[in-house]
């Protein structure tokens, strides 16, 4: 490899290291456990103050939404166990009983306090259930 090639390699290495550092710090600040309801309840002690992304289905009962204040409480389930969720903010259109949701936030021991709420984009690639 010529002299110029060596210099380029050095720049490349510096770049990669810089990128790795940025990635590492970015990952650290946004890493969250990605858990199902059951997994969260099983580990409830160890994940108490950690950032969590929780996924599951919205249960038909127990849904309370005050449109004016924006407060939303509902139950999320993985099929067998349920967990209450509290959220305040804009509710995505796809949110409804039976929808798949992902909430980001923390678990305080009794309920999941959600900062962000995502409802899964309506299944473009699966037929609408129950006709």
């Amino acid at each position, binding site marked *: 490899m010529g002299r110029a090639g060596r210099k380029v390699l050095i720049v490349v290495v510096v*770049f990669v290291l810089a990128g790795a550092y940025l990635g590492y710090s*970015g990952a650290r600040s*946004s890493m969250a456990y990605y858990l*199902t309801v059951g997994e969260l309840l099983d580990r409830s002690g160890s994940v108490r103050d950690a950032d969590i992304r929780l996924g599951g289905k919205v249960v038909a009962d127990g849904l309370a939404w005050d449109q004016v204040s924006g407060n939303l409480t509902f139950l999320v389930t993985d099929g067998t166990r349920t967990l209450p969720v509290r959220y305040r903010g804009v509710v*995505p259109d796809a949110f409804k009983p039976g929808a798949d949701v992902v909430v980001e936030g923390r678990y305080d021991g009794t309920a999941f306090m959600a900062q962000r709420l995502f409802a899964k*984009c309506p299944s473009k690639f699966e037929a609408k259930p129950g*006709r």
Partner: protein
Amino acid sequence: MGEVGTLAIGMAFVVSLYGLAAPLVGLGLRRHELVRSAVNAVYANALLLAVASTALLQALLARDFGNAYVASYSSRDLSFWYTVSAFWAGQAGSLLFWAALLAGFAAVVVWRHGHHRELMPYVVATLMATSAFFTGLLTFVSPPFARLAFAPADGSGLNPLLQNPGMFFHPPTQYLGYVGFTVPFAFAIGALATKRLDDEWIRATRRWTLASWFFLSWGIIFGMMWAYVELGWGGYWAWDPVENASLMPWLTATAFLHSVMIQEKRDMLKVWNLVLIVLTFALSIFGTFLTRSGVLSSVHSFALSSMGPLFFIFILLILGVSTILLVSRLPALRSAAELDSLISRESSFLFNNLILVGAAFSVFLGTVFPVLSEAVRGVKISVGPPFFNQVNVPIGLALLFIMGVCPLLAWRKASPRNLSRSFLLPGALGALCAVVLLALGISHPVALAAFALSVFVAAAILQDFHRGAMVRRSHGEPYALAAVRLVARNHRRYGGYVVHLGMILLFAGMAGGAFSTEREAVLTKGETVAIKQYTLRYEGASTYPTRSALVTAATLTVYNAGHQIGVMTPQRNIHKTHEDQPMTEVAIRSTWREDLYVILAGLGDDGTANVRVIINPLMMWMWVGSVVLTLGTIVAFWPERGEALRNRARYVVEGV
């Protein structure tokens, strides 16, 4: 009609297999009529898939609800254009769309590039192999013409979230991009197989690559527009796995577009170019796969239809065959030329590639992080937007810098004098911009850097235009004519510059997002909410029916520093076919300076409105930048006078 469709797809599958086998067998047995018959297979495949597509379209428009797909994605009250777009609304239809596009492209390839006689057998085999995969899926796993036991009176209808013009533009352009990259990939495989490792395969597919890149860009842009207008959270990009899946091939394709120029000019980076096109194609397939597998978007790995593993195997096959071919040809791929200097146009292209591929890698890593962490630590950990932004924002700035620097550098080695001459004016203007912005009170470092660099790049580009025109003028041509002729002599270069200008506007629009502000308010009739210089007064809500929905609109009068400038009506609607799901329609007021974005988050029974108001500075610049990008691509694509003649002559002279 459904039987015709099913038959056509089944036959297309068989024909594709033939198109894969015949050229390879024919070459092996030296039976050239077999090789030539494969070309007929390509045409037959295209015809069959055209028939199948027509059959599905007809079923949709004729409201044949006995067809399971039609029943799932359309309804009697769905308008004509949305019924057409229901074609690609679901799994089977979108796969058929992919296969039909590929079949059409393959037919064009054999028609227009048949003179590359050595490469053609492998090109056809590769295209038909891909076609066999998709038609195989359509035949065995996801047939679009499956019938229901009982035909319902009306279909389920298209989900209201999809009833937006975006539905008509985003999937087709996205697919045109994905499918388009099959062609340069096929030529790359042909080049490897035949050991014709010069830039023949690159020159043959240059316009395919450019067009595919263009459509992929618009697929992403339409996706952003659609998300911005429809999903109603004020943003346009969330680093969602599905979004990332479309971005990754775009990044590698952009890198490829640039690095092939090095191979053409200096005969370097041959291996790298091959690797890039293989990656781009594999990522396109990965992108197609990710949007339909759910494996990364949700917590559960849903019990996938056998489609997920099949895509995975196909990608492994692509990577495996390409790697084997590449490794076996490695000795022949060594380049004679060497890098002369750290500061040269070649090295800036190298850095451009490094930056783009680095971005693609980081996006990939962030996207598959949960899968990796589960394999390593037994628990899924995901990373969010901060990870992606922290890595990609500096990358974006570096990209801006390179965009400005590259045209200023000479090939092989840039002399310091030459450098300082070229950098002076653009550098000074960039620095001036930074000073002016600081004086105006903008101190956000990233935004400052982005705007200053944007000015730097724009100045560098315009300087290059000007210098070129001045050279022509010194030979007696008037300036305006010189500028036009300059571009006409080199569409690729100057078209590329215009694309860069478009990218600058896009970056500037994104940088504006750093200054977004948001306000939430609960308003009764007559109350106001203020954000920056705007005041919005809530006048009340009204409900009225339309053909397909029950509309509930809140009316807000907008004042700018006291003067009334308009009325905005964000809505919460209920569509007739999906009464359990509300449809928020945001109200957006765009100016050059900023977007005023209003969401009706909720409406109480007494008419109290919960509104969220967002100001997004410079949003419109993104869309304008997209248009400039389009113009640049058209210029770069447009053939130059005498180009076809020069290409033919080169081919003949090289003694085929």
